[in-house]
C-alpha cells in the first residue's frame, strides 16, 4: 500500500518531540549545574604548578593562577585578558590575590624551589626558601641535601606540638571552663539561698578548678617553649625575607617538583582535611566536619519528628475523619501549608518554639540557670531541637499527602479481608494498611528529607550559626545536646559566599561546600530509597 496516502497514520505525533525537548532542557540544566559545581568544587583541592612571573613594570609574582577573565572595556574582537594570582602572604601583601594584565607579563618560569605553605594564620604563602633554622638552632641552607628531610621532620614535629596545644587549650581547658561556669552558677545560687555548707563546697571546687586551669596553662606554655621552634627563612617574590615559624605550617609542598602521584596524595590529604577537620580563618580554610555533622543530625531528627506526626495525621484524615466540608478544608489547608515560604516557618519557629516553648522549658526546668547565670537561656534560644522541629513542621504536608495517597492505594480487598476476619479498624491499620503503604510513606519521607536538608532560611532564625564552638554530640552527659546551636552546610554556603571578609579566598570553598551538600543530600536519599526498595520487594508479585 502507498504509505503517503495512508490516512490512518496517527496525527499529532510531533508533540512527542516537544515532550522530548522538555526532557532535554531539564536534563541539560541538571547536568550543567552538577558539572559546574563538581568542576569548581573538586579543583579546589588540586595543586597546580606555581609560576614565577615577571611583569613589565618590574614586579615579580609568585602565585597560583586562580582565574583568567576578559578585561573590562577591552574590545570584543580583540579581547584582552587579565589573570588573578593567589600570591598568599597576606600579612605582607595586604591581600592574597592579585590581578595582572596578561599582556604585561614578560615571562613565566616554574623553578623547582618554589614552596607552597598552608598556614594556621594569614592564609597560604608562596615563597622561595633560603634556609631552615632547626629547633636546635642549626641552620641548613636550601642547597644542602639534608634540607628536605630535615624540613619534613620539623614540619611533622611542629604539627605534633600544635595538635598537643589544641588538645590542651581547646579540650582540656574548655572542659575546666565549662565546669567552672557550672560551679559559679551553683555558688551564686548557694549564696542567694544562704546554704553555708554548699557555699564552702563550691568555693573549694572553684579553687580546685582554678588550680587545674593554671596548671594546664603552664603545661601549654611549656609545650610551646619546649617544642619545636624551628622556622623557615625564605624570600618572597619581592625579595623580602620571610621567616615562618613551623608551628604555623599545616602543609608544605613544592608545587613545581611534585609528580602526579604526589599531587594526588596532596589532593586527598586536602580533601580529607576538608571533610574531617574544623574550619579555620573565618571558615575560608580548614574543614567542614561540624557543618556536615550538624546537617546530618538535624536532618535525621527532622525525619524522626515529621514521620510519626505526618503518618498519624494522615491515618486520622484518611481512616477516621468523617467525610465532609471540614475534612475538605483541613486537606486544603495541609496542601497550602506546603506552599508557605520557608522563612515564614522560621519566624513561626522563633516566635513559638524558641520563645514560647523554649522559654517555658527554661522557666520550668532551668529556673536556677536563668536566675544565677545572667538570664542566659538554655532552650529559650535557637538550637538543634528547634531547627529540627521547625523543618519537621515545614515538611509535614509532604509526609501527610504521601501517606494519605499510600493508604488510599492499598487495595480495598485487603482492607475488607482483614475486617471480615474480625480485626478491628485499628488492627487493620496497624497490621495491614501501614505495612502495605510503608513504601509510599517512605517516598514522602524521602521528599521531606530532600527538602529539609537543603533548607537554610528558617534555620538562620532558629539556631544555625557560622561557627559553633562545640558539636551537638559529645562525650559529656546527656551526650546529645539538643539545645546547642550548630553549623549547617547550606548556611555555610551562604556565609562563605556573602559574609566572608575575604571573598576571593571564599569563592572556591563555596563550590566545594555546595558539592558536599549535594553529595550529602544524595547519600541521605540513596539510603532512604534503599530502605524503600527493600520494603517494596516484600510486596512484589502482589496481584490485586
Amino acid at each position: 500500500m502507498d504509505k503517503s496516502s495512508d490516512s490512518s497514520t496517527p496525527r499529532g505525533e510531533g508533540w512527542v518531540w516537544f515532550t522530548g525537548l522538555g526532557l532535554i532542557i531539564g536534563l541539560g540544566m541538571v547536568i550543567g549545574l552538577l558539572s559546574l559545581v563538581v568542576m569548581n568544587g573538586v579543583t579546589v583541592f588540586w595543586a597546580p604548578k606555581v609560576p614565577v612571573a615577571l611583569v613589565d613594570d618590574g614586579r615579580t609574582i609568585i602565585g597560583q593562577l586562580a582565574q583568567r577573565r576578559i578585561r573590562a572595556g577591552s574590545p570584543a574582537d580583540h579581547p584582552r585578558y587579565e589573570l588573578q594570582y593567589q600570591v598568599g602572604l597576606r600579612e605582607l601583601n595586604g591581600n592574597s590575590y592579585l590581578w595582572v594584565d596578561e599582556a604585561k607579563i614578560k615571562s613565566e618560569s616554574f623553578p623547582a624551589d618554589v614552596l607552597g605553605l598552608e598556614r594556621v594564620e594569614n592564609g597560604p604563602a608562596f615563597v622561595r626558601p633560603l634556609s631552615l633554622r632547626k629547633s636546635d638552632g642549626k641552620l641548613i641552607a636550601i642547597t644542602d641535601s639534608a634540607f628536605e628531610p630535615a624540613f619534613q621532620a620539623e614540619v611533622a614535629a611542629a604539627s605534633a606540638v600544635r595538635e598537643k596545644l589544641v588538645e590542651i587549650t581547646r579540650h582540656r581547658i574548655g572542659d575546666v571552663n565549662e565546669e567552672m561556669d557550672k560551679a559559679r552558677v551553683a555558688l551564686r545560687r548557694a549564696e542567694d539561698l544562704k546554704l553555708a555548707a554548699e557555699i564552702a563546697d563550691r568555693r573549694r571546687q572553684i579553687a580546685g578548678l582554678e588550680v587545674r586551669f593554671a596548671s594546664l596553662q603552664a603545661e601549654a606554655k611549656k609545650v610551646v617553649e619546649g617544642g619545636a621552634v624551628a622556622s623557615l627563612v625564605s624570600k618572597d617574590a619581592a625579595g623580602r625575607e620571610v621567616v615562618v615559624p613551623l608551628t604555623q605550617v599545616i602543609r608544605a609542598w613544592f608545587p613545581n617538583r611534585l609528580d602526579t602521584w604526589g599531587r594526588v596524595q596532596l589532593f586527598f590529604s586536602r580533601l580529607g582535611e576538608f571533610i574531617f577537620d574544623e574550619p579555620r580563618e573565618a571558615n575560608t580554610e580548614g574543614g567542614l566536619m561540624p557543618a556536615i555533622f550538624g546537617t546530618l543530625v538535624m536532618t535525621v531528627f527532622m525525619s524522626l519528628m515529621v514521620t510519626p506526626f505526618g503518618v498519624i495525621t494522615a491515618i486520622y484524615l484518611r481512616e477516621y475523619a468523617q467525610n465532609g466540608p471540614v475534612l475538605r478544608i483541613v486537606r486544603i489547608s495541609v496542601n497550602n501549608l506546603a506552599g508557605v515560604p520557608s522563612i515564614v516557618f522560621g519566624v513561626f519557629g522563633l516566635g513559638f518554639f524558641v520563645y514560647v516553648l523554649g522559654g517555658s522549658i527554661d522557666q520550668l526546668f532551668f529556673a536556677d540557670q536563668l536566675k544565677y547565670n545572667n538570664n542566659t537561656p538554655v532552650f529559650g534560644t535557637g538550637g538543634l531541637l528547634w531547627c529540627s522541629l521547625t523543618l519537621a513542621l515545614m515538611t509535614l504536608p509532604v509526609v501527610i499527602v504521601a501517606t494519605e495517597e499510600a493508604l488510599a492505594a492499598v487495595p480495598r480487598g485487603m482492607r475488607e479481608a482483614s475486617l471480615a476476619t474480625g480485626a478491628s479498624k485499628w488492627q487493620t491499620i496497624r497490621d495491614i494498611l501501614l505495612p502495605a503503604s510503608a513504601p509510599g510513606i517512605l517516598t514522602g519521607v524521602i521528599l521531606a528529607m530532600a527538602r529539609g536538608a537543603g533548607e537554610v532560611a528558617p534555620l538562620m532564625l532558629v539556631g544555625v550559626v557560622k561557627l559553633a564552638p562545640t558539636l551537638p554530640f559529645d562525650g559529656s552527659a546527656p551526650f546529645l545536646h539538643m539545645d546547642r546551636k550548630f553549623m549547617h552546610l547550606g548556611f555555610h554556603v551562604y556565609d562563605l559566599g556573602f559574609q566572608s571578609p575575604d571573598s576571593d579566598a571564599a569563592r572556591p570553598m563555596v563550590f566545594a561546600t555546595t558539592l558536599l551538600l549535594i553529595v550529602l543530600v544524595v547519600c541521605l536519599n540513596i539510603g532512604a530509597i534503599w530502605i524503600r526498595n527493600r520494603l517494596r520487594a516484600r510486596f512484589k508479585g502482589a496481584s490485586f
Partner: protein
Amino acid sequence: MPEIMNPPSSSRIKVRPATEREGRKDYISIRDYGFWYGQKKALDAISLDIPERQVVAFIGPSGCGKSTLLRNLNRMNDLVDDVRHEGDITISGRSIYDAGLEVISLRRRVGMVFQKSNPFPKSVFENVVYALRVVGVRDRAVLEEACETSLRKAALWDEVKDRLDDSALGLSGGQMQRLCIARAIANRPEILLMDEPCSALDPIATGKIEELIHELKDQFTIVIVTHSMQQAARVSDRTAFFYLGKQIEYDTTEKIFMNPSQAQTEAYISGRFG
C-alpha cells in the same frame, strides 16, 4: 462449636434434599429486609430462613442484590458511606444489629471469602493465623496447630506445607483462593459467606473449591453467591433466586432447578434471560 454431624461421604449426589440434614431450620433468619445505597433501593422485602449446616446459594443476574444481601450478613456494607436498612437479620435468634453485639464479634462468627482472592502480603502462615492474631493468640503451638487444621480443611496443606514462610503472593490463583478460605475458617466461625469464590478460577481450581464446600458444610453454614447455575446446583442444598432487589423464589435446590414455581425463575435457570 458445631460438631461434625455427618461424616463426609465419598459419593456425592448431584442435588441433596435438605431434609437429610439436621440443625436449626431458621439459623439465619432474614425478615422484611430492605437496604438502600443512598437513594437507591438495593434490596426490597427479603424474607428467608437459612438452616444450620446447609449450603444456600444466592443466584440471579448482575445487580439483583444477591451480593448486597450476602455482605449484609456480616455487616460488611457498614463500610460503605450513606447506607441504611429496614427489617432485621437474626443469627441464632439474635439480631445482628443488636446494640450489645459488636460488629467485630459478629464478623468473628461469620467468615467471608471474596470474589477476588485477597491474601495479605505476608507469609502463608501469617495469612492463615491472622484471625487468631487479632484476638491476641500468641502461643506458637496453638497458631501452628490452627494453621495446619485450617489448611487441611481448605485442602491446601499438602501443597504449601513446605513453604509456610514464603509470601502468600507467590501462590497460584486457585491456591490463593483456598488460602483465603483457610484464613476465613481459621478462627472457626459458624457461618461462611462466599461471594462468587470461583469466578476468577479455572475449572480445576473451581472443582477443588466445590469439593471443599461439600467437606465444609458438615461444620459450617455456608451461603454462596454464584453466577454459575451449575455450581449452585452442584453445591447447594437450598437456592434463592433474586431479581432487581426482590426475592423471587427460595426453596430447595432440587425444587428450584427441577420444578420452579415462578415463571421468572424458570426463565433464568433455563437461560432465557439474565
